[in-house]
């Protein structure tokens, strides 16, 4: 039952995509069917959540079938706590983004059916990437995942969509191909060491332990490059702002909310577990990139004039935090990083969705084109603020606990990097609140809101403004996100309980223990 749930979670969106694609002429049916499949995905995800025993085996709900026996490749699925929470995040976010792009966001001449089909295809690949426990299968899905996102950005995105799509594809493909070298390298090393080549993750962990550090470093770098491009660490991040800016809102949310987490997930599952010595050896360099990402992303977020690019830089800063937590090698920091992976999906996802609603009303991505919007749309303004506060990790919101855990956990081992990263928290308050202030506070103004006739800076009576507050659909979109943001802010325990043992297991695989026995000081 449990194992089948993962298979179903993978196949359901695929079937959905095929079915939805048939309704390209009938938009209404396409919407209903797509939403039905997206909601149905919650069922296998819930079953997996229930069946999963946090204190059980390292990988659970496993299902292994031979795929290409000649190459030692299996179709193997299974989850640990980390993969499970990501699966849940995907299942929750996809219906939200489908509903969010329900009306009027797509470029002329593009059908909703095509859009929804690509989103569902994305969902299948994303679920597969997290639940694959065969490195070959993981690689296949990791690469195939690019194709739906490529078309989402290129066909359904903004005016520079095709440029952004190609840039996204080439960056990811380049990283992926280098990773392919490492994937094959793992197989060859395992074959030389144990006599039988395999791509099963669990077997590779055993086979690669004790491989020479030099070998590990080379293989580590191959994986690392791919993941550092995916969860963009700083020098490799330039594709993300373009892709995020041009992607339709829903695809953008999935891009920063889930797809980029494949990178941080990959650090945990593949880099740390497969190459422990190399991870320890190279951690200082990674930490430099991580902290650089925090500072650089934060500073650029402050200076952004484009709301969607803003989301990209905020995410780059947060990925820096996550990478810091992963490579600080304490169980607190690691748990914080994993929790952050989920919570960033909710908080940045919500802010992104809110920004999308602002853009829907004003028709412009420029922050300057807005002002004083709170008067016309108090509800949207309030929810935007909640999302913003969550992004800046205000205590009581969902991002506070993970960020705090990362910083507290990293400090004993890496005090300098941690202190530097703390600056990012201060900057976060600056960029979020400043943006909120510019868009929502003060008199109603801005070309997007009052029209060119009034001219920028002209105050206008909100009653005569055509800007409407949230409608029922939009409230439905935001409601689950608000619940997640506030709920997990006050009570993160369910998620922490699930990821805790997996985090300890990962620590064990790296072969490190916390500096202070017990770890919780």
């Amino acid at each position, binding site marked *: 039952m449990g194992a089948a749930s993962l298979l179903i979670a993978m196949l359901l969106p695929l079937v959905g995509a095929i079915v939805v694609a048939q309704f390209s002429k009938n938009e209404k049916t396409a919407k209903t069917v797509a939403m039905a499949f997206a909601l149905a995905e919650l069922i296998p995800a819930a079953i997996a959540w229930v069946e999963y025993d946090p204190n059980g085996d390292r990988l659970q709900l496993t299902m292994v079938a031979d*795929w*290409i*026996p*000649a*190459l030692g490749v299996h179709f193997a699925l299974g989850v640990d706590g980390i993969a499970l929470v990501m699966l849940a995040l995907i299942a929750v976010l996809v219906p939200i983004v489908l509903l969010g792009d329900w009306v009027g966001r797509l470029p002329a001449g593009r059908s909703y059916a095509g859009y929804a089909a690509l989103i569902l295809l994305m969902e299948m690949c994303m679920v597969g990437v997290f639940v694959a426990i065969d490195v070959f299968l993981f*690689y*296949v*899905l990791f*690469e*195939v995942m*690019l*194709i739906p996102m490529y*078309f989402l950005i*290129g*066909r359904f995105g903004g005016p520079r*969509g*095709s440029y952004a*799509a*190609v840039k996204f*594809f*080439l960056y990811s*493909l*380049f990283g992926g*191909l*280098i990773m*392919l*070298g490492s994937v*094959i*390298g793992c*197989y*060859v090393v395992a*074959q030389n060491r144990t006599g039988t080549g395999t791509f099963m993750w669990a077997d590779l962990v055993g086979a690669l332990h004790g491989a020479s550090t030099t070998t590990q470093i*080379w293989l580590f770098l191959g994986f690392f490059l791919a993941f550092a491009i995916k969860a963009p660490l700083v020098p490799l991040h330039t594709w993300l702002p373009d892709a995020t800016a041009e992607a339709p809102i829903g695809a953008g949310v999935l891009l920063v909310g889930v797809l980029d987490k494949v990178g941080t997930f990959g650090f945990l599952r593949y880099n740390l577990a497969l190459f422990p010595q190399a991870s320890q050896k190279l951690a200082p360099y990674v930490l430099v990139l991580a902290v650089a990402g925090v500072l650089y992303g934060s500073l650029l977020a402050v200076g952004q004039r484009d709301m969607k690019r803003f989301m990209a830089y905020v995410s780059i800063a947060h990925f820096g935090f996550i990478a810091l937590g992963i490579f600080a090698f304490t169980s607190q920091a690691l748990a914080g990083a994993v929790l952050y992976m989920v919570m960033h999906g909710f908080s940045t996802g919500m802010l992104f969705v809110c920004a999308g609603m602002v853009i829907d009303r004003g028709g412009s991505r420029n922050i300057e084109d807005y002002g004083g919007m709170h008067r016309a749309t108090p509800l949207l303004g309030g929810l935007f603020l909640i999302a913003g506060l969550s992004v800046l990790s205000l205590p009581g919101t969902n991002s506070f606990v993970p960020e705090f855990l990362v910083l507290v956990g990293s400090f004993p081992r890496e005090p300098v990097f941690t202190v530097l990263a703390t600056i990012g928290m201060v900057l976060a308050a600056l960029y979020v609140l400043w943006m909120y202030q510019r868009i929502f506070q003060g008199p109603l103004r801005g070309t997007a809101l009052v029209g060119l006739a009034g001219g920028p800076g002209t105050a206008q009576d909100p009653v005569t403004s055509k800007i409407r507050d949230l409608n029922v659909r939009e409230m439905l979109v935001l409601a689950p996100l608000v619940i997640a943001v506030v709920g997990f802010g006050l009570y993160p325990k369910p998620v922490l309980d699930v990821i805790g043992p997996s985090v300890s297991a990962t620590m064990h695989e790296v072969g490190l223990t916390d500096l202070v026995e017990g770890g919780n000081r």
Partner: protein
Amino acid sequence: MISFLAQPGGLDALQAPEIDYWAMAPLLIVLGAACVGVLVEAFLAKPQRWPVQVILTVLTFAFAGLTLGLRLTKDPKGLTTVAGALSIDRPALFLWGTLLALGFGAMLMIADRSVEPGGSFVASAAIRPGTIQDRAQAGQHGMQTEVFPLALFALAGMMTFVAANDLLTMFIALEVMSLPLYLMCGLARRRRLISQEAALKYFLLGAFASAFFLYGLALLYGYAQSVKLADIAEATGGTDRSDTLLYAGFGLLLVGLLFKASVGPFHTWTPDVYQGAPTPVTAFMGACTKVAAFGAILRVLQVAFKASSWEWEYVLWAVAIVSMAIGAILGITQTDVKRMIAYSSIAHAGFLLLGSIALNHDGLSSTLFYLLTYGFTTLAAFGVVSLVRNADGEATHLSQWAGLAKRSPLVAAVFSFLLLALAGIPLTSGFIGKFVVFRAALAEGMGPLVVVALIASAVAAFFYLRVIVLMYFSEPAADGPAVSVPGAFTTAAITLGVVVTLLLGVLPGFALDWAGAAGFVF
């Protein structure tokens, strides 16, 4: 064969060698059908020729495939026949199967006479382009059917080429496969001038390459006193012979082979010939010639020169790197879709060479598998190219492909899939092919070469992607090409290629087992 002449008794001692006709049956059937095809041309009236040739071709492939299948069930390892001139072992049978399947696909495209009314070929290749006679013959809509026996002869040559167990047989096979191809390149109905240019260029450069091959053969005979691959292998073990002869001979031989395989830096003919030749012929060359040339390269390297590999290994490393770099980088600058696929084939030749230098069992099986996957993908890709047309024939300039997805979504989707396969994206056969080749190379300690290959793949992905961008994200040009409704034959060829590309991408297990069944017999 020549070794008989060198025997002490001279001609008196010459006995007829044992010939295993059953083992050679697929080859003999194709060769025989080619001869019958010539007779058909000579004795039948023009309207009857096309149907008869098509039926003859289908029967040929059916029977050749049948005998090949029977052979596979019978003999687990393989044998040599005709006094050791032909080696019908597992790799040869795999290559024969590949050649027959690809050849069949290409013949389907050649036989099509509805995409281009009257077929893609003219009767007289030598008429000066632009003259009245030339326009007259381009205007005739009768199908020219000489191309059927020509293609079958070429195919028979290729089949001999990959099974040849001594260098002289290999040379003759090389000529048998090349000469019809030279002619077929010049037969394009449209754009006669570049077609003639292609034929002439291919012929001149091909003749050079053959001369290189022959010169190398002679030097190697001087070195080993034999043209048999096995004898050369044995000779390289000894120390009292002239290394100069060995290296010079091997180098020259290799130039001839690499030329046929269009490996850079011996690739210069490829873009021009691919562009100028009629598209069905380009498909035939792109798929089958590549298979044949690499089949021979594999056999020569693995059978004859394995022992001296440390002497030449790094030379071929360099050649592979050059080929991948040329293919990937120059491919980016191309504006013609046929030239682009030509440069892609040069990059792929580099990848194939990677597998060929990995002198282990995995190297052999992975290269064989790669040839199979590459052949089908290329075949189908050229099939699609032949469909996108405007008033002047095929619209091969890339700008004319803009917005194709809007006009013919199916054609655009199929071509995108094939491009992704050429780029090596997972769930296509191209990925599995690359994967097994890189794995074999890594296991052989060729890490740096694999890294170069991966980077080259990433660079090459750019130009495949650019076509997808054009088809999907750009607005169609006002007077852009229309996609002609494909005839049943071209549809069948494209379907064959696409299905195999998908099948080998998702479930490659059985083909990998065939490719790795057994090694060379010599």
